[in-house]
């Protein structure tokens, strides 16, 4: 058939192959490397599904930030093999395989039997978009129609970070994340990269944030990129990881949800509903919320990767 169809078939096949590799690979490190490749391939799938906003998020989060997190965890789990590496007996694996096949087959049947014509909210989303002053319907859904989801998701990020921080030992509470002396061993190439990339990365992140109102992009994608730049600089030892008790850090973490919540509450008076925007001010308010959000998303993602505090405060 057409070139596009062949490309899709090869892409889907590769994604499935890499996914199978992640499950069966003998070495955990190899599986993690496979997972990073998988995240990037999945971003291509999102492009083919005409969802560039999701593709950007998947490439930044699925391939990038999750990759750093998993590689760090795999490196620290290597060595002391305390978990016995015992696979379940063959009959049990067979039963599990059969169960999973049935579930996959049922999902496949659902995919093949989806109703025609497909139900869609795209016309409604497009019809109400001029009132928000935005040009990108996905940003419209995130920031206007389903703003409550986005607000709660910010809160989830902060809650997850509190969860990670609370795993610290008592002695290092309020201290600095990351094991001691990692910065001293940073190779020259990493330090060079950490000097070269962040200026470009920060500009691109701000551009993504601004562009998100009208084109694919937005605070999540920009925030993930900012987080990646910060992680890179911390890994290279160019930026000291901040102590988790640092007041400026905590302010950066809560500014996004706080501004969102404040504007949402102001909506009661200015527009008659929680998280509603008064019409002529909709776009400036949304850009303001997104600007505050990018700071909090970047800080939360980078600190989730950095993990619980491990060095006591000085």
């Amino acid at each position, binding site marked *: 058939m057409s070139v596009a169809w062949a490309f*899709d078939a090869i892409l*889907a096949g590769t994604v*499935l192959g890499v*996914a*199978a590799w*992640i*499950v069966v690979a003998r070495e*955990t490190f190899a599986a*993690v490397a496979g997972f990073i490749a*998988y995240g990037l391939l999945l971003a291509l*799938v999102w492009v*083919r*599904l*005409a*969802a560039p*906003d*999701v593709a950007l*998020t998947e490439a930044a*989060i699925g391939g990038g930030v999750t990759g750093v*997190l*998993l590689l760090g*965890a795999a490196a*620290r*789990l290597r*060595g*002391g093999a*305390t*978990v016995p590496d*015992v*696979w379940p007996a063959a009959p049990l694996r067979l039963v*599990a395989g059969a*169960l*999973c096949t049935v579930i*996959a087959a049922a999902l*496949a049947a659902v*995919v*093949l039997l*989806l109703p025609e014509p497909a139900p*869609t*909210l*795209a*016309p409604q*989303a*497009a019809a109400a978009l001029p009132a928000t002053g935005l040009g990108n*319907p*996905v940003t419209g859904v995130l920031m206007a129609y*389903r703003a409550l989801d*986005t607000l709660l*998701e910010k809160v989830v*990020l902060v*809650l*997850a970070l509190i*969860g990670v921080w609370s*795993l610290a*030992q008592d002695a290092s509470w309020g201290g600095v994340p990351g094991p001691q002396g990692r910065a001293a061993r940073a190779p020259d190439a990493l330090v060079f990269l950490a000097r070269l990339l962040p200026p470009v990365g920060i500009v691109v992140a701000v551009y993504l944030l601004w562009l998100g109102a009208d084109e694919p992009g937005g605070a*999540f994608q920009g925030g993930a990129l900012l987080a990646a730049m910060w992680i890179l600089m911390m890994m290279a030892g160019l930026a000291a990881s901040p102590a988790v008790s640092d007041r400026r850090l905590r302010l950066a973490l809560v500014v996004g949800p706080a501004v969102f919540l404040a504007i949402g509450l102001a909506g009661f008076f200015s527009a008659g509903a929680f998280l509603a925007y008064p019409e002529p001010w909709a776009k400036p308010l949304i850009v303001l919320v997104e600007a505050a959000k990018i700071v909090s998303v970047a800080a939360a*993602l980078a600190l*989730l990767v950095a*993990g*619980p505090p491990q060095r006591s405060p000085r």
Partner: protein
Amino acid sequence: MSQLFGLAAAALVGLGLYGLIVHPEPLRKILAFNLLGSGVFVLFGVIARRGAVVGTGADPVPQAIVITAIIVAFAASALAIGLLLRLRQTTGDAAPPTGDGPP
């Protein structure tokens, strides 16, 4: 075209679930759980693609939900990995806990 990715998504859910059930290593279970989740996300993407109307590539509502979901899935994975590393710290290469409470 989107049906192809829909079938792949169904297979991803199956693969992820299998890894989650049978793999003995916790970090691999987290990886498998992420595979399962990404399969569900791609299903959303397929449904969004089918909901495309003239002028848009795909229905924006499922897309926005998937963007939120990817971030939440990352936060959950980070918390799971934090728990796993802490578990290793208290039971593994660190000294076993003495008396009442972790070292």
